[in-house]
């Protein structure tokens, strides 16, 4: 256990952290991707709620 914690600290220390440009690139792509497919689902769900609301009343 102690050995693992020691190794873990070492691995974290040598890990290369993303630079700003790379970080923003990934954030932008992942964020836009989520919003894009999220909106498709959102629209489908909204239409489905309207239809089901109409069927219910």
């Amino acid at each position: 256990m102690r050995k693992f914690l020691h190794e873990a600290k070492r691995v974290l220390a040598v890990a290369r952290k993303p630079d700003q440009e790379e970080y923003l690139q990934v954030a932008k792509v992942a964020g836009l991707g989520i919003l894009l497919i999220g909106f498709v689902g959102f629209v489908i769900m909204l239409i489905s709620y309207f239809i089901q609301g109409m069927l219910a009343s």
Partner: protein
Amino acid sequence: MDEVKEKPRSKLYALDPIIRRLPEVAVPKRRVAFKERFIWTGVALIIFYLMSQIPLYGIAQREPFVDTNGNGVFDFIDANGNGVMDPGETALEPFTDLNGNGVWDAGAQNFFGQLRYVLASHAGSLMELGIGPIVTAGIVMQLLVGSKIVGLNLSESEDRALFTGVQKFLAIIMAVFEGSMLVLAGNYGKNVGLFSPAGLLLVLQLTLGATVVIYLDEVVSKYGFGSGVSLFIAGGVAMTVVWEALNPATGVIPNIIGTVLSNGDFIAEFFRPHLPNMMGLIATILIFFIVVYAESMRIEVPLAYGRFGGVRGRYPIRFLYTSNIPVILALTVFANLKIFAALLKAPWISYYTDAPNGLAQVAADPIRAIIYLIILVLASMGFAYLWVHMTGMGPRDVAKQLDESGMLIPGFRRDVRVMEWVLSRYIMTAALLGGAFVGFLSAGADFLGALGSGTGILLTVGIMYSLYQEIAKEQVAEMFPAVRRLFGE
């Protein structure tokens, strides 16, 4: 050569006659063009979304979206001039099950609880089981093969074909099983018997829905980007995030606007209980940025090319070496536990393996939160360890690969065992640490009440990132045919 002994064929070949009859999505004969991949992926996603909107036939429903004051909730402001779903008002949940539990919105009682995001499950719809059967079948097959219980050699094409066939067959069996268990557990009403016409009809619908997902997954894997499993998880989570943020009834942003316009209690919007709130939205964005950071962390092992001592390179090892897979596996096991717990009438089992959602629930029972956190972190580390060893990502496999391509670690003598030793210090540590990290982050984000669940956000960012890498690679290959040859196609 005469010495080569005929390897005993695996007992699984007994299933061969059934596997042969299972329809299969044909392997593409030529390279699938970029645009085509894009279209198949989109079509699969839309079919998945549509199926998660088709309610199961035979469960009770109520009129969607009317609040307790009887106001229709598509009007942004109710008769009192308040936002439509103010704190203190309760929505009549659309799609209430026979027990009176709402089944669609976050916070509503719902069989798989927070796990539904990992399963891409949409309660009360054809997508109730989501990808649960596929992932469960996958875990079982990996365990069977990894532990050498069935003697399949996945590097042989015949054995590999059998493996995927059996996995698909098992997934369909799992769908029938999980569907039956849900009916037995009384998820669709305590008085719906498994062998009553209503019960059988529900199992049939659930199985059909899950089977369509199994084939959609195959279509996406062969003709689209990534896999159907990851696409549907990401799709379900992304839809929930946008829905909970923007929908005109319970959405966080419309309600904030309504409250501000009517000079209502702004602070209360941050902590609305049982509804997506502003805290959740902030937590979602926070988790997003943390995960993006962790996803792009690398450990670079210096390498030299043996024959030309001067040529140096680096072998990048991802900090999240097994990505979010440990959490997916751990939570799929939890979901199956939940089914058994319901059956054994032992609700405490699923109580401690379901994440408290939001600070209110954490405060109500902190012990539960701590126990959940510990269980998830340990299970994730365990699965990270197993996954590395079972999928050929372990130090020995990587060392062998690098050694065969003539690489060595500068400062060490060229020996595959030395390389394995050096790599294992990085790989196993990164895998275990990464497993613990994703488990911790997933639980923590759930505690903050992130929209689409913390686990969902964690999975979705990872999925989007690898999808992006695959799309970028495809696009390069499309534009420069020479690159395609480089990949050996």
